[in-house]
């Protein structure tokens, strides 16, 4: 399509505040955090400890995942309860690469096979592990596999006009089935333990704080990029069609649009973003295993989005940070009570803030205006 429209669209987006906010976030995440981590002496109050950087890196991946979720749920009205699967597949792709990078440094010293295969008497590397020695291939797969799965699955489902809870449940069935499948040691993905014992990524040792900082910054960049892509989509006419599909799918058909393709576009794009998030997540946490496929994980993703504010991209990001931040804090500060507190938070948000945390922001702003 015509190239100027792209930049015109991105720049013409009406909300100046949004762009200022984005710039602010970019500075905070890409400049301030690294500076506080590197330049401040460790005993300074302003020092950003390494574990915080790792933690933030993890949140950034979750935020990207939430963004992906919001794209399909908030805008297309497709409540996917299987988004964890796309995230996990992206993670496995990256995990496979890092597994291959271990080479002969594994415990059994076998250069051709990962430890878990040696130990389960695998004689040779299965065909689907081929190519994962190359970073570019793994990176491609981290996008392509979730994308392809979403495309095929979505095509079948949307074509058959599966909507609402029916769709939610079969996406849940999908991730559940994948979880069970990845549990099976015969699958060749390390069974319950999954992929672990990673040493380095592209030659950078994972244990090094500098590698962690690098991964963190990459995650921040990817989140920013994902945000721009998502924003481009939802502010386009396609975005409005998505919303129309969400509200009255059958009516959209009579206008000549095909909801199948609209949703398929959103679903596939979202799955790819989720896969990307997963691929960045795994090197930062150091393990990927089938529990990432568990239905509860996928439900949690929806919860982040709902807490932050569904149908607002910023809200999704906010929700991911808020819920995970609360979880980190509470599991340490109130290990026996945190479920009460988190549960209460969810209930309070639903009852008090129907539009999520972002809605709260809107409410405050309206009040300010009223006062001014």
């Amino acid at each position: 399509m015509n190239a100027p429209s792209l930049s015109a669209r991105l720049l013409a987006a009406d909300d100046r505040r949004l762009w200022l906010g984005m710039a602010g976030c970019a500075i905070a995440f890409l400049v301030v955090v690294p500076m506080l981590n590197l330049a401040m002496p460790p005993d300074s109050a302003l020092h950003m400890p390494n574990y915080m950087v790792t933690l933030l890196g993890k949140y950034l991946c979750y935020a990207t995942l939430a963004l992906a979720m919001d794209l399909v749920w908030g805008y297309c009205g497709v409540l996917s309860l299987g988004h964890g699967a796309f995230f996990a597949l992206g993670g496995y792709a990256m995990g496979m690469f890092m597994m291959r990078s271990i080479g002969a440094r594994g415990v059994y010293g076998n250069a051709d096979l990962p430890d878990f295969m040696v130990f389960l008497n695998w004689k040779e590397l299965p065909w689907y592990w081929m190519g994962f020695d190359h970073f570019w291939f793994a990176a491609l797969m981290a996008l392509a596999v979730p994308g392809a799965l979403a495309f095929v699955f979505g095509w079948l489902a949307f074509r058959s006009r599966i909507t609402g809870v029916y769709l939610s449940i079969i996406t849940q069935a999908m991730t559940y089935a994948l979880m069970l499948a990845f549990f099976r040691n015969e699958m060749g993905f390390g069974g319950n333990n999954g992929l672990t014992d990673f040493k380095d990524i592209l030659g950078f040792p994972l244990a090094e704080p500098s590698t962690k900082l690098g991964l963190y910054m990459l995650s921040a960049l990817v989140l920013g990029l994902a945000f721009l892509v998502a924003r481009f989509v939802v502010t386009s006419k396609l975005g409005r069609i998505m919303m129309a599909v969400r509200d009255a799918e059958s009516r959209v058909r009579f206008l000549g649009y095909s909801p199948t393709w609209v949703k398929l576009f959103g679903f596939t794009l979202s799955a790819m973003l989720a896969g990307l998030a997963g691929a960045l997540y795994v090197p930062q946490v150091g393990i990927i295993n089938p529990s990432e496929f568990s239905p509860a994980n996928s439900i949690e993703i929806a919860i982040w989005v709902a807490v932050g504010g569904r149908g607002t991209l910023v809200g999704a990001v906010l929700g991911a940070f808020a819920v995970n931040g609360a979880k980190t804090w509470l599991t340490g500060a109130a290990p026996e009570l945190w479920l009460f507190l988190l549960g209460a938070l969810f209930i309070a948000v639903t009852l008090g803030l129907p539009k999520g945390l972002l809605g709260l922001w809107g409410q405050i702003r309206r009040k300010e205006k009223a006062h001014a």
Partner: protein
Amino acid sequence: ADDTIKVGVLHSLSGTMAISETTLKDTVLMMVDDINKHGGLLGKKVEAVVVDPASNWPLFAEKARELLEKEKVAAVFGCWTSVSRKSVLPVFEQLNGLLFYPVQYEGEESSRNVFYTGAAPNQQAIPAVDYLMSKDGGEVKRWVLAGTDYVYPRTTNKILEAYLKSKGVKAEDIMINYTPFGHNDWQTIVADIKKFGAAGKKTAVVSTINGDANVPFYKELANQGIKADQIPVVAFSVGEEELAGIDTKNLVGHLAAWNYFQSVKAPENDAFIAQWKTFIKNPKRVTNDPMEATYIGFKMWTQAVQQAGTTNVDAVRQAMYGQKVKNLTGGTAVMNTNHHLSKPVLIGEIQANGQMQTVWKSKDVIKADAWSPYIPESAKLKADWTYPWVCGNCAEPKFKM
């Protein structure tokens, strides 16, 4: 503050593993409480930092990092499942932390930063099978290896299969069955076991079924009328704590192999049980093997700290080697240089009151093999963290003598 020594407690208090792990958190708290009552450690108060990794494996890593980097704990007591241990392992190695892991597991690991106080397969599985093959055990000829589908059962069964075959058991006399976590419909499998056992040869089930799946499994066994004197089931993951959730009236005689039973008569054990019941304020609470492992681990760590005069990890690690603690069954546990313990092996039969009655006990303590001799790749490896090996998985020493 400087007058306290912090220890981390990294056990799930919510989620699927809370069923088992909460008890271990309480055990550590009891030990901490006890040591503080007795004047603390190096003259300082010990403070337990409890976090909840919520049965979520990435969260385990996050919390481990938090404990080590933020809380700066001297040692961590935690983890139950192998995957949680795998998840925190890089964190402990990177930050040079110290983890005491108290659960029986599949072996094939020896990290410089972990002390394994639970049983390795040769301290549990193999003696159990030996017992069943003996006259007292019923001279079992046919075997069902039933487990939850994950590493621990897979490894254990692999080792057992190799072992059984080395004892002349034919392939058709071994049935292997795996089920998902939390499997709760055992009708078909129990019926299959019954069928398998009806071939006219003495049959036994070796169960590495884990966690939630056990209650429905045993209920189904009882209801389908599988009696211990016909087809005994020997379990490696079912202890007193698990039995407390099951009506054992119809399960009398089924077996379990551990390194500890609550029913063992020994002064240390009596004291421990009494202390536990007081601490937890419930006279009905039971004790179990991972609790003993936690107890041993904690005791050893305090002794090592005292010996080293510091909580510095490297110093404590050195002091750990050869450290001895009276275990609760009347013997002595020794920490070997492969970071695993020497422990006695006990085989017990389930009683109607939910306790185990010891029917066999190893003559001596058995030293854990970190690397199993029954897995060819593993047989070559050795774990020894002292000179000249200084290695958890090496085919030859790091330093030439």
